[in-house]
């Protein structure tokens, strides 16, 4: 069975500090991977997607970057956090390139102060 693990569970960071969030998928080779962001009380917005190692496409510009260093790993990062980065970050995977059924991780709650 496939499992998706996100870390950390929560972060409290200062404005201007760096950030790195991670996501690992086990039990599925070559998954399509996604990062989503959710403002408090808001809907989910796709930030990045990746269909293969080393390839990441940006969907929304939020002064964040993403990388896929391994087939089963997806990293979201920034050098300088903004207050507007606060929210809930969710990693997801799907089987096909056409965005079929999404499977989500448990998410990371980020508070930028």
């Amino acid at each position: 069975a496939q499992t998706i693990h996100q870390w950390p569970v929560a972060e409290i960071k200062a404005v201007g500090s760096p950030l790195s969030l991670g996501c690992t998928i086990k039990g599925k080779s070559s998954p399509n991977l996604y990062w989503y962001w959710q403002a408090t009380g808001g809907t989910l917005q796709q930030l990045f997607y990746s269909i293969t190692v080393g390839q990441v496409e940006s969907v929304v510009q939020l002064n964040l970057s993403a990388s896929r260093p391994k087939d089963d790993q997806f990293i979201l990062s920034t050098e300088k956090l903004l207050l507007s980065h606060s929210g809930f970050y969710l990693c997801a995977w799907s089987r096909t390139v056409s965005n079929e059924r999404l499977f989500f991780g448990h998410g990371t709650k980020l508070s930028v102060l």
Partner: protein
Amino acid sequence: GMPVEQNPPALSLYEGADSGLRCNFSTTMKSVQWFQQNHRGRLITLFYLAQGTKENGRLKSTFNSKERYSTLHIKDAQLEDSGTYFCAAVSSNTDKVVFGTGTRLQVSP
């Protein structure tokens, strides 16, 4: 307008009540998922539909691609049904997933 319009934005039910949520799509979608987000933020998949109707216990969902809508019906609401419900649909044109704006459901005793 928004590609996915979800209604109602908020819903209050007493235990045992029945109700429904709806997502209307401005373009043709080829599949839809329904999620419940709990108080910890965890997204729980309720349904994935490419067409037709599915039932799971007290929940039933319908997706009509031609008429551009999907519904989620909750029967005999329970306290644990509280949370925020999202539909997420895949566009037939772009293959992109678009989430609805969510329905915040509160079930009271």
